[in-house]
C-alpha cells in the first residue's frame, strides 16, 4: 500500500499529465507506455525522453498508474480517477439505481435511529446518525456530479456537427433523459413512488426529535452536534434534489423535444460554455480576440484670470493718436559719387608701396567727399588682393571736413 502523502505529492508534481490521462480514460481504459510518454511530450515538449521515462516510473511507484500483470499495460488508479474527475467535472452520469439504493439506505438508517432512540442506546444513535450523515454526503456528491455529467451530455449534443441528424446527435440525450431524469423525477414525485422527499423528511424529523431528546436529557456535545449537523444536511439535500432535477430537465427537455435551433453558432457557443464551466472564464477567454476599447478622457483647457485683465483692457480701449515723425529728406543724388573702381585699383597698383592709404586717397582724389573716401578706404583694406600692413604710429589725416586720427593702413607690393 503506497504512502498517501507520496501519492498526493506525485499527483501534484504531474497533475497535467494525470488530468490528460483521466480525460482519455473515458474512451481508453488502459494505456500503453508509449502512449503515456507521448501524452507527457504533448504536455511539456521541453522534457527529454529520459525525463519522461523518469516521470512515468514515478507515477507507477506512487501507484497513480497501475501496471497490469498480463500485458504490461497501464491503468489509472480508481481513487485517482474519481478524485481528478471530481475536480475537473469530467463525470460519467451515475445510475439512477445507485441513487435510489442510497435513498433506500436513508430509510433503513432512519429506522435504526428510531430504534436506538426507543432503547435509549446512545452508541447506536451515534452510529445511525453518522451513517445518515455519510449517506446524505454521498447523495449530495452524486447529485452534483450527475448534474455536471448531464450538462456535459447536453453540451456535447449541442456542439455536435449541425449536419448530423437530430436523432444521432441527441442519442445520448435521449438515453440520459429516459434512464436518469425520468426515474429521478419519479423518485422525487410527491406520489406513491416519490421516495426521495418522503424518506428525507422522515429522517429529518427523527433527527430533530433525537436532538431535542438529547438536549433535554443531556448528552455529549459532540453527539448533539453530529445529530444537528445530519438534520441540517437532510434539509439541504431536499433543496439540492429539487434544484438538480429542475436543472437537468430544463437542460435536456428542449433537446429531447427538438425545439432547439441548432446551427454552427449555437453549437460553438455550447462548446465554449462547456469550456467555461470546466476551466473558468479567464482560462477560456484570453483578452486577444475579444472586442476591446479605450476611452480617452477629453482634456480640459481653461484660461487663467489674466484673460479678465486683457478683456477689461480691450473693453476700455480708447484710441490713442500717434504723430508719425517728419519725413527725412532723401539722400540727394549729388552726395553719391561715382568712382571708377578699376581705374582706382590700377592707379594704386602703379603707386605701390603706399604707406598710408587714406593720405594717398586724399591726395589722388581731392574731388571726392569725406564719406566716399572713408568708404573706399575700408573697402580696400578689406580686400584680400592687397598686401596690407598697419603702422603702430598714430597719424592724423585731414580730409575735407574731418580730421581722422588713426593707425594708418599701408599697401605694399
Amino acid at each position, binding site marked *: 500500500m503506497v504512502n498517501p502523502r507520496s501519492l498526493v505529492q506525485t499527483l501534484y508534481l504531474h497533475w497535467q499529465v494525470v488530468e490528460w490521462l483521466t480525460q482519455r480514460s473515458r474512451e481508453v481504459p488502459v494505456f500503453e507506455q*508509449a*502512449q503515456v*510518454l*507521448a*501524452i507527457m*511530450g*504533448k504536455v511539456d515538449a521541453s522534457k*527529454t*525522453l529520459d525525463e519522461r521515462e523518469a516521470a512515468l516510473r514515478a507515477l507507477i511507484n506512487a501507484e497513480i498508474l497501475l501496471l497490469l500483470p498480463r500485458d504490461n499495460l497501464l491503468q489509472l488508479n480508481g481513487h485517482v480517477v474519481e478524485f481528478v474527475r471530481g475536480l475537473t467535472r469530467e463525470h460519467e452520469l451515475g445510475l439512477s439505481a445507485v441513487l435510489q439504493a442510497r435513498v433506500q439506505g436513508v430509510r433503513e438508517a432512519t429506522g435504526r435511529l428510531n430504534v436506538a432512540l426507543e432503547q435509549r442506546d446512545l452508541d447506536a444513535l451515534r452510529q445511525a446518525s453518522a451513517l445518515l450523515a455519510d449517506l446524505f454526503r454521498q447523495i449530495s456528491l452524486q447529485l452534483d456530479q450527475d448534474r455536471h455529467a448531464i450538462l456535459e451530455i447536453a453540451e456535447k449534443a*449541442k*456542439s455536435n456537427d449541425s449536419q448530423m441528424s437530430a436523432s444521432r446527435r441527441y442519442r445520448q440525450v435521449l438515453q440520459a433523459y429516459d434512464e436518469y431524469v425520468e426515474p429521478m423525477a419519479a423518485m422525487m414525485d410527491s406520489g406513491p413512488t416519490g421516495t426521495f422527499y418522503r424518506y428525507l423528511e422522515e429522517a429529518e424529523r427523527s433527527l430533530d426529535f433525537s436532538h431535542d431528546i438529547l438536549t433535554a436529557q443531556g448528552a455529549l456535545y459532540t453527539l448533539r452536534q453530529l445529530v444537528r449537523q445530519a438534520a441540517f444536511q437532510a434539509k439541504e439535500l431536499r433543496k439540492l434534489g429539487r434544484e438538480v432535477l429542475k*436543472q437537468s430537465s*430544463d437542460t435536456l427537455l*428542449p433537446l429531447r423535444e427538438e*425545439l*432547439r*435551433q*441548432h*446551427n*454552427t*453558432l*449555437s*453549437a*460553438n*457557443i*455550447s*462548446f*465554449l*460554455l462547456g*469550456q*467555461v*464551466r470546466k476551466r*473558468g*472564464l*479567464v482560462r477560456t*477567454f484570453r*483578452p*486577444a*480576440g*475579444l*472586442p*476591446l*476599447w*479605450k*476611452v*480617452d478622457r*477629453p482634456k480640459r483647457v481653461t484660461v487663467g484670470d489674466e484673460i479678465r485683465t486683457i478683456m477689461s483692457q480691450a473693453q476700455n480701449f480708447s484710441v490713442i493718436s500717434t504723430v508719425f515723425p517728419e519725413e527725412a529728406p532723401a539722400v540727394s543724388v549729388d552726395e553719391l559719387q561715382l568712382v571708377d573702381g578699376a581705374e582706382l585699383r590700377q592707379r594704386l597698383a602703379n603707386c605701390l608701396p603706399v604707406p598710408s592709404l587714406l593720405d594717398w586717397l586724399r591726395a589722388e582724389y581731392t574731388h571726392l567727399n569725406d564719406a566716399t573716401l572713408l568708404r573706399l578706404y575700408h573697402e580696400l583694406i578689406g580686400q584680400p588682393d592687397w598686401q596690407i600692413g598697419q603702422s603702430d604710429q598714430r597719424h592724423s589725416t585731414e580730409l575735407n571736413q574731418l580730421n581722422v586720427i588713426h593707425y594708418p593702413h599701408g599697401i605694399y607690393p
Partner: protein
Amino acid sequence: MTKQSATLHMGRMPRLDELFKLFNAGKHLNRVAEPALWAELEQEQEQYQTLFSSLGYQLRVDARGFAWFHFDSANSTVNSTTRQLALLLMLLFELKADQGLHLGRFCDWILDRELLTTLLDRSHDLLQAEGLDEQSLAGLLDRACNYGFAELGRGGWQLLPAVWRYLDHFEALAIEQLDDDDVENGVQLIEPAEDEGEES
C-alpha cells in the same frame, strides 16, 4: 509615420468632430442606432479612415452595419468587462437557441429583468463564479450601451449589430480549440516516430 499622399478634403467631413468623439469614447457606431452619422461615415469612408490612420487610430468598418476604433490590447478593467459581457451573451444566445429562436435575429430581442432572472436560474453556478447577480448583469448591460453593443429602450435593452464581433470571436475560438483537440487526438500516433527523431 508614413507619409499620406492622399488629399484630405476637410470640407467633406462636417461631422468629423462628432464621429471622433464617439469612437474616442470607446463606442461602436451602429447603422440602426445612429443612421445619420452612419450615412456620413459611409459616404466618406476612405477619407475618414485616412485621417484617423494618420492620427494613429485604426478605424474598422463592418459591412453588417457597425464601425469602431480597433485596439489589440486594453487595461485590466476593460478585459474583465469584455469577458463578462462575452459570458452574458453566450448564456443569452444559448437560452434563445433552446427556445427555438433564430440567433441571427438578435437585434429583435428585448432583454428585460425577467430574462435576467431566467438566466440566473439556469446558469447560477457560472454567473456566481464571476460574481454576477441580477443587479450586476443589469449594470453590465448598461455598460454595453455605453460602448455601443446595446441600447436602452422601452421595456428593456436591445442588442445592436456590434455584437457580431463577439459572435465572430466565439466561432473562431471554438474552431481553434476543436482543431487543437483533433491535433492532440492524432498526437498519440505520431509522437512515437517523433521520439525516435529526438533521440537521434
